[in-house]
């Protein structure tokens, strides 16, 4: 079994730092170092570092790259100045989400894309199927190690590890003297950066970030951190059957920029209002931690959907989750029930995000 799992270039460094590595989405990754609550709190209050080497990196370049990417992606690539990044979606013909990703512009016709680990092959196939000859697309996922350093003290960690270098502004991208890529982005809601180095130097960087004060964190708390922010997880909260409009992420779709794959469905949903919406649910009392696939019921006991994600929020000390519900149940304050092993816990629809970070770049 473990032979089939992909290995992170940081594995030796993880073991040295005391991680518990387990199979995770086809990868052998640390899910926790010590405990999820500790690691979660380190990111919210100080700084933590995650291995994100499993994520994919594509480089797009060549004449017509911008125009082509603007047809492939839902957000407006033309709005990016050189050195800037944006969150966007790769959609299928019916507007469903193939993947959510961040695209950075590194030159007039040069782009750096960071995609989800589990979607590298599928994204690549979709891009190549539509790609004109003049545009070059390279999958560099194997070549890069990735680390996300996140938390209010992340800038200090960066200054200690990369003296003389400057962090790019929020959502920006820059390159260090040794060719590493630094992106001022993340998946936790806190200030922080994502750092991509050569696979060979990844382990050294991980140890340097830890020595500079970032607590090594597993992917377990990355999930609780992102869910507190209502950041969607592809495969859970996003799928080829759901559009960004239903997911409440229309802000990252530009309907004015001209045609793009999936636009027709999105325009219709925008005009008519989507039939279902991804809502944020929070327990109104103590209860068993909500988890993905638990049934959501109306107060009348009717099944109205299921959780796409759920967790015991370490910051709030209560159960939180996301669910696609018929729009009639999407109004803030709407009361619902979440079924956990036959027991029903009351919850209500709340405003996104669940948690507001105290610091932000």
């Amino acid at each position, binding site marked *: 079994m473990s032979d089939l799992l992909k290995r992170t270039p940081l594995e030796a460094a993880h073991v040295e730092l005391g991680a518990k590595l387990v199979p995770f989405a086809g990868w052998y990754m640390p899910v926790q170092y010590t405990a999820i609550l500790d690691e979660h709190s380190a990111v919210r209050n100080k700084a933590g570092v995650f291995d994100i080497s499993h994520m994919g990196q594509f480089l797009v370049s060549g004449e017509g790259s911008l125009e082509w990417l603007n047809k492939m992606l839902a957000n407006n690539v033309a709005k990016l100045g050189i050195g800037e990044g944006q969150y966007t979606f790769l959609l299928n013909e019916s507007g469903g989400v193939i993947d959510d990703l961040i695209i950075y512009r590194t030159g007039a016709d040069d782009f750096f894309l960071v995609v989800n680990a589990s979607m590298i092959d599928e994204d690549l196939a979709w891009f190549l199927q539509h790609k004109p000859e003049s545009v070059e697309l390279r999958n560099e996922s194997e070549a890069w190690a990735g680390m996300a350093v996140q938390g209010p003290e992340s800038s200090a960690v960066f200054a200690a590890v990369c003296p003389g270098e400057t962090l790019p502004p929020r959502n920006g991208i820059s390159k260090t003297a040794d060719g590493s890529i630094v992106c001022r982005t993340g998946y936790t809601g806190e200030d922080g950066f994502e750092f991509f180095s050569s696979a060979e130097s990844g382990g050294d960087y991980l140890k340097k970030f830890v020595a500079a004060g970032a607590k090594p964190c597993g992917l377990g708390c990355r999930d609780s951190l992102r869910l507190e922010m209502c950041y969607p997880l592809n495969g859970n909260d996003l799928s080829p059957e759901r559009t960004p409009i239903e997911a409440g992420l229309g802000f990252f779709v530009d309907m004015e920029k001209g045609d793009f794959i999936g636009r027709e469905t999105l325009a219709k949903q925008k005009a008519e209002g989507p039939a279902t919406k991804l809502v944020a649910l929070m327990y109104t009392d103590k209860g*068993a*931690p909500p988890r993905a696939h638990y049934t959501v019921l109306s107060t009348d006991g009717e099944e109205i959907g299921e959780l796409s994600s759920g967790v015991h929020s370490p910051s709030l000390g209560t159960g939180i989750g996301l669910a696609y519900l018929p729009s009639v149940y999407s109004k803030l304050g709407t009361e619902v029930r979440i079924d956990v092993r036959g027991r029903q816990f009351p919850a209500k629809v709340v405003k996104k995000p669940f948690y507001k970070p105290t610091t932000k770049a």
Partner: protein
Amino acid sequence: MNVPADLRFNTSHEWVRLEGDIATVGISDHAQEELTDVVFVELPAVGRAVDAGDPTAVVESVKAASDIYAPIGGEVVEVNPEVEADPSLVNTDPYGKGWIFKLKVKSASDVEGLLSPEAYIAQIS
């Protein structure tokens, strides 16, 4: 590793303390360390009859929900309301305040079939 000498253990990491015909059940220090932060404990109904191996309680961490099995057969006569109010007791005091339920056992000799502390240490080492 904390494995008290006066307890018996289940291969699925529950401990048992037998006093007369009452067996107190909790999870081992090793189990709480593996599960990490316990954030919820689901207790069984008092009066429920269980057989050895029946899922009887649920302990949940941020990461996952884990069934707690009855190490021996009996009737649930008491549950620990303190772990319901403060689930972290399972982490901080697994053999004391973190106990989960008490069984009135059918046959006290059933305990003999459970692991001795030495055998349990061998299992988790």
